[in-house]
C-alpha cells in the first residue's frame, strides 16, 4: 500500500455544535476533571480528591435497596412474565406515559407537600430528567432571543439547559448576602428593566425552590411577591422543585402549588412546576423528570415535545409500583429528611469550628459556604485562586460561586450527601488544616 495524500474531509458543523454555550468549560465542570483523575477512596486512595461538587443523594440508599429486595416481584418481570403486563408494557408507545406511573408520581409529590397541594396525573408530562424538563419548557415558553429571569446564584447547568439549543437568554435577578440572597421586588424589576434595555423580551421567571446552590427554601411572602410580579408583567413562572423532598423540616417548604390551590388557581395558567426523582430519591441514573403545568396548552405541547425525551416504559413500571406504596414513601421521605438534616448539622458545625460560616439553610444536598474572609482579594480572580488551592492542595472539589453567577466573591457550594460520614469527617479535617495553614501564614506575614 502506497502512501496516499488524502484531501481531508472538512464538512462544517452547526454553530450549536461548535459553540461553548453549553457552559461545560466553566470551573464547575473543570473541578470534576481533577476528581476524575484522582478520585478519593477510603481504602485505595485516601489522599485523592474528595468529590463535594456533585449534588447526589446517597444517604438513603439502604431504604431503596431493602424495598426492592422485598418487592422484587412487583418491580420486575422474570418468572411469570407471560402472565404479566410485560407485553403491553413493551409495546406501549404513548408519550403520555403510563397512567399508573403518573398517578404514583402525583401522589408522591402530594406527600412531599404534606397533602397541602393536589396534583392531577393528567397534568404531568414525563421527561428524561429535570434537565430535559427545564429545556423543554424553555422551548415552549420563549422564542430564540427572548429571556428568562433567573435569580443568582443559580445552578450552572441552567446555562446549558435553558440556553444552548433554545437560543433563549438568561437575565440574572441579582441577589446578595445582605438579606440572605432572597429575591426582592426591586431585584425582579431591576432584571426586567435590564432585559428591556437590551431590547429583549422577557417570557418568564425561573426559580429553584429550595434553591440550588443556597440550600434554602423560598419564603411564602417572597413566592407571593414573585407571583404578583409575573402576573403583572403577564409572563410565566417556572418553579423547579427538584429538592422539595429534601427539605429537613416539612413545614418549612412552601410550594407554589399550595399558594395557587389556596387562591383557587387564580393566575395559575402561567405557572409550571418541574420535578425529578434524581435528588430526593437518589436515582439520577433513572432519568426521571416531570413537568406539571396548570396551562392546558402547555401540557399538550409539552407532551408532544416529550417524544424527544421519554422514559422507557420499563422504568415507569418499576417506579410506579414503588411510588404508589404509601407506607414506603412515607417512611422514605421522613427518614431521608432526618438523615439529611443530621448531615447538614454535622458539616455546619464542622465548618463553624474552623471559623467558616454558612448561609442558614434548610434543605437540599449542599450548603452555601462563605470563604470571603480567606480571599486575598475580594474579586472573582481571588475566588478562583482560592478555589484552585482548594482543589489542588486541599483536594476537595467544591463549586465556586462565580460559576453559579454569584455577584459576591468568596461563596462556595459544598455537597455533603454523596459520601459516607467518614469521608465527610476527612473532608472537614482537611479544611481545618488548610484554614490553620492560612491563618498561620497570615500571622507570620503580619508579624514580619
Amino acid at each position, binding site marked *: 500500500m502506497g502512501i496516499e495524500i488524502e484531501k481531508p*474531509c*472538512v*464538512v*462544517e458543523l*452547526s454553530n*450549536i*455544535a461548535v459553540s461553548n454555550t*453549553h457552559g461545560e468549560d466553566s470551573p464547575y465542570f473543570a473541578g470534576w476533571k481533577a476528581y476524575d483523575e484522582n478520585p478519593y477512596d477510603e481504602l485505595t486512595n485516601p489522599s485523592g480528591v474528595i468529590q463535594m461538587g456533585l449534588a*447526589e443523594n446517597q444517604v438513603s*440508599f439502604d431504604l431503596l*435497596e431493602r424495598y*426492592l*429486595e422485598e418487592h422484587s416481584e412487583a418491580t*420486575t*418481570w*422474570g*418468572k411469570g*412474565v407471560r402472565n404479566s403486563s410485560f407485553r*403491553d408494557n*413493551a*409495546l*406501549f*408507545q*404513548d408519550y*403520555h406515559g403510563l397512567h399508573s406511573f403518573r398517578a404514583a408520581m402525583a401522589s408522591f409529590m402530594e406527600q412531599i407537600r404534606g397533602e397541602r397541594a*393536589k396534583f*392531577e396525573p*393528567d*397534568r404531568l408530562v414525563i421527561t*428524561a430528567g429535570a434537565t430535559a424538563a427545564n*429545556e423543554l419548557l424553555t*422551548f*415552549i415558553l*420563549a*422564542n*430564540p432571543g427572548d429571556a428568562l429571569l433567573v435569580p443568582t446564584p443559580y445552578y450552572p447547568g441552567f446555562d*446549558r*439547559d435553558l440556553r444552548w*439549543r433554545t437560543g433563549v437568554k438568561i437575565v440574572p435577578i441579582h441577589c446578595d448576602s445582605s438579606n440572605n440572597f432572597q429575591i426582592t421586588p426591586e431585584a425582579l424589576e431591576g432584571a426586567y428593566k435590564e432585559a428591556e434595555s437590551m431590547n429583549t423580551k422577557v*417570557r418568564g421567571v425561573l426559580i429553584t425552590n429550595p434553591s440550588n446552590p443556597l440550600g434554602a427554601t423560598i419564603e411564602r411572602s417572597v413566592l407571593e411577591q414573585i407571583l404578583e410580579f409575573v402576573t403583572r408583567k*403577564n409572563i410565566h413562572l417556572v418553579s423547579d422543585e427538584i429538592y422539595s423532598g429534601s427539605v429537613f423540616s416539612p413545614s418549612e417548604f412552601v410550594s407554589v402549588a399550595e399558594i395557587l390551590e389556596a387562591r383557587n*388557581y387564580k393566575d395559575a*395558567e402561567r405557572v409550571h412546576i418541574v420535578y425529578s426523582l434524581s435528588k430526593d430519591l437518589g*436515582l*439520577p*441514573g*433513572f*432519568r426521571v423528570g416531570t413537568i406539571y403545568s396548570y396551562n*392546558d*396548552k*402547555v401540557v399538550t*405541547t409539552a407532551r*408532544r*415535545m416529550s417524544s*424527544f*425525551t421519554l*422514559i*422507557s*416504559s*420499563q422504568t415507569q413500571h418499576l417506579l410506579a409500583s414503588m411510588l404508589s406504596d404509601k407506607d414506603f414513601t412515607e417512611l422514605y421521605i421522613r427518614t431521608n429528611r432526618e438523615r439529611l438534616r443530621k448531615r447538614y448539622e454535622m458539616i455546619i458545625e464542622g465548618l463553624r469550628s474552623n471559623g467558616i460560616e454558612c448561609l442558614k439553610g434548610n434543605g437540599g444536598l449542599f450548603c452555601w459556604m462563605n470563604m470571603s474572609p480567606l480571599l486575598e482579594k475580594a474579586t472573582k480572580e481571588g475566588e478562583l485562586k482560592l478555589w484552585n488551592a482548594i482543589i489542588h492542595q486541599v483536594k476537595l472539589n467544591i463549586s465556586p460561586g462565580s460559576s453559579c453567577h454569584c455577584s459576591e466573591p468568596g461563596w462556595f457550594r459544598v455537597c455533603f450527601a454523596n459520601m459516607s460520614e467518614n469521608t465527610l469527617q476527612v473532608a472537614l479535617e482537611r479544611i481545618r488544616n488548610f484554614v490553620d495553614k492560612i491563618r498561620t501564614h497570615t500571622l507570620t506575614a503580619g508579624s514580619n
Partner: protein
Amino acid sequence: MTRKENKKPQPSPPSSSSSTSGGGGTAMRVIVPLQGVFQGRGGLFLGSVIPCALYYLFQLYVKTRTRHRFNSPPTSPHSNSTPSPSHNNLPELSVHPRSLSRTHLSSPTPSAFLSGRAASLAADSPYYAGLYKAAENSYHEVDNPEGVIHLAVGDNKICVDLVEDWMEKNLSGAVLEEGGDFTGIGITGISGCQPFDGVMKLKVAVASFMSQAVDNSVFFNPSQMVITSGVDPAIEILSFCLADYGNAFLVPTPHSPSFDGAAKWRTGVEIVPVPCRSADNFNLNIAALDQAFNQAKKRGQKVRGIIITNPSNPVGNLLSHETLLSLLDFAREKNIHIISNEIYAGSTYGNEEFVSMAEILEVEDHDRERVHIVYGLSDDISVPSYKACVIYSCNKNVLAAAKKLARLSSISAPTQQLLTSMLSDARFMQNFIEINRLRLQKMCQAFVARLKQLGIECARSDGGFHCWADMSALMRSYSEKGELELWDRLLNVAKINVTPGTSCHCIEPGWFGFCFTLLSEKDIPVVVERLQRISEATK
C-alpha cells in the same frame, strides 16, 4: 393482538379557547366593526354592536368555564377529537402579544404567551387525530371488536414472544438485585450518575448486535456511539449538530412523518423534499436530488445534508449499493452531510440484500467524516417503548457535541442494563434476527396478497414495518383533499387508523401506510373486511 382498551391513555387535544381567547379577541375586534361599516349606517350600528356583544358574552362564558378547569385537567377524549379550522388557527393567535386586549377583557386573567415553536406543535394533524381516536376506542378481539385498529405507528410486535421467552429464562430475580442475572452491580451501581451517552458495556453489546444485523460485514467501534432515548431525539440531535436555524436537509419523499418533528420543530431547520415516484417504486433518483439541491440554492436555502432512511419508511425499499455510492459522490461534491437512518436494518425480509452505509465506508473511508448513521435498538428487538437508539459517527466533533446533547434524552440505567444483557446474548440475538426476518416476510406477503384481492396494490418492499398501499381507486377525487377524505372514512367508518401519504409528503395522492407488524394473522381478515366496507361504499 392489539392494545387492550383498559389501558387507554388520556389524550388531550388542546381545548379550543381556554388560554387563547384573548389573542383571538384582537383579530375579532378588527373584523367585527368592519362588518358594520360595509352594511351602511343602520347596519353600522347593528352590524358592529350586536356581534361584538355576542362575542364578548361568549368570551365571558369561556373564561368562566376556564377557571373551573384547573381541577379537571385536559383529558376529555370526547371533546375536540377532530381538528376544526378555528382549533387550528388558535396556536397562531396565541402567539399574538397580549397588550392590546387586556383592557377589553371582562376577565382579569390574560392568557400567557407561548412560543412560535409551541404553536407549530400544538397544531393538529392526522397523526394526532388518529392517535386520539385509536386510544379512545382501541380494537380488541374480544372486548371491543368494533374498535379502531391502529396501524399508523411503526411498531413491531411480531417477535415479542421471543423476548418474553428470553426474559422468563434470564430474569430470575429483581432487575436491581445484587449478584443478579445482569451484571451483578446492584442498585448502587446503576442509580448513580452515568455517562449520558450510554455505558460502555451497552455500547459493546450494541456493536456486536449491529454487526450481526449486517451479517458481520462491518466492525463497529463502541467509542463512536451515542445512545439516545429513541429515533426522534437521535435525528433531532444530529439536526442540531449539522445545521443552523434556517438551513435545510434534503429528504426523499415519502418520508416518515416524525421527521417533520425531529428534524424541524425545535431546530428551525427546513426539509426540502426530493420526490420519488411510484413508477420507480419510489426509489431515490440522483437527478431529482440534484434538482432539489439547485432549487433550494436558488431560493437562498443553505443545504447542510441529506437524510435517507434505508430500509425506507414508509415504502420499505432498500437503497442499492450503486445508489449509496452515487449519494456519497453527491454529498462529497456539494460538501454536505449524510444522515443514514437505518433503524430497520435488522428487519429486512425480501430477496434483495441490505447494504449499510457503514459497509460503503469500509471502502470509501475518506468520506467517513460526513456520514452519520442511526440504528434502532428497541424497535428492532420488539420492545419499542423501551426507547433506545444509536447515533454512530466517525466525526469526532459531531460525537463530542452529540454526547453533550444526549444528556437531554438519555436512557435510564435499568433499561440500559436490560438491553445490555439481551444484546450480549449472541445466540439469542442471532436466532431472533433470523426468526424476525422470516415472520416479517410471511406477514408482509400475507397482508399484501389480501390487499391485492381487494384490488389494492402495494409498492414492493424488502424491509421495515409498513406496506405502502395504493388506495387511489377508493378516493372520491384524485387530490390531497380526496386522500384526506378517504383517510377520514377509513378512520371513522372502517375504523382503521392508517398513515395518509400527505403526512409523509408523498407527491402522488392516494398512498397509505399500513404497519403490518402490529397485526397477528387473525387480524388480517378483520382489516380486509373493514376495507371492503369502504370499497363497497365507493362503488
